[in-house]
């Protein structure tokens, strides 16, 4: 019978590193998907995931075992990705680069197809998400995270507020503002040339 999360955590705290490998195996998919949602397709996803698990390992002594481990991992992942977004902004990675003409053409094509009600192919959905991240890249880290938590992951306002350390009303206001910005940007892309 597989061990429960609290059992594995207890073993890790006694110095059993194999137990941690089991935790990584259980939650690696969850962490990779979170990184993908927050940072988009990222060539550094593996490094980011590794850093998240190292942070988890170091923080296990502070983890309240009466709460689900996934919530703890989720919190670490969100905070780490927020830091990554801020760092990326600091390093000016892509952030001030507008979409290329080719990307704009793809957005137009996907928009036309989508508004006509034609279902997108799997590869087009992937591309669509990638392009959405190009729109999101110009937002602040917190704006981007708020949008992703609500619209990509479908989290509740209360949940987002707890994660980002703010109130549900502030989340609503921020999200509304973010969407206006995104719509304006999208409109700009669709009307270019």
């Amino acid at each position, binding site marked *: 019978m597989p061990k429960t999360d609290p059992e594995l955590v207890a073993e890790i705290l006694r110095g059993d*590193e194999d137990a941690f*490998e089991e935790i990584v195996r259980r939650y690696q998919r969850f962490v990779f998907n979170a990184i993908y949602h927050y940072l988009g397709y990222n060539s550094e996803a593996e490094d980011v*995931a590794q850093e998240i698990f190292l942070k988890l390992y170091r923080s296990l002594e502070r983890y309240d075992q009466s709460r689900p481990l996934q919530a703890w991992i989720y919190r670490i992942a969100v905070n780490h990705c927020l830091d990554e977004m801020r760092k990326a902004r600091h390093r000016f990675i892509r952030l001030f680069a507008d979409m290329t003409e080719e990307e704009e053409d793809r957005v137009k094509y*996907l928009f036309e197809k989508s*508004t006509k009600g034609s279902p997108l192919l799997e590869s087009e*959905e992937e591309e669509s*998400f990638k392009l959405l991240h190009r729109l999101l890249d110009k937002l602040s880290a917190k704006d981007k995270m708020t949008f992703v938590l609500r*619209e990509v992951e479908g989290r509740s306002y209360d949940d987002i507020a707890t994660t980002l350390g703010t109130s549900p009303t502030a989340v609503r206001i921020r*999200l509304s503002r973010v*969407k206006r910005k995104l719509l304006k940007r999208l409109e700009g892309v669709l009307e270019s040339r």
Partner: protein
Amino acid sequence: MKRHIDWEMVGSEDQLDRSHLEECPECQKKYRLHMFLVRQARSARPVEPPPFFASKVARSIQQASQPMWFYFRWAAARLAPVLALLILATGLLIINVLREPELPDTVILDDSAASEVSFENMINSLHKARSEDPGE
């Protein structure tokens, strides 16, 4: 329409005032844009972690929990050949410097040749000085 398209609210069509939407081209356009954005957000595909990722993390945890002396030993093992090469090169340089022949500080030209300073005279004087040097 602002009342209806309060952008954080719209997620499905039933939240909209359909009759207004049918009449207002501006709102139709905004609604289409919004729905496209929402669809884009929901088009995220599940991703798979790379193979052996868990083992890799476990290895890096093991490395991170090694005691300090482990790193000194690790660094020493890697630096030893470089240090040996440095010592060898320094030794060779010192030997080379010590083996270089010493020339007399000054060479006194023959009085007879003093009036006629030429390359030939200088060489002859040098040979003469060397043969008189008791150290040679």
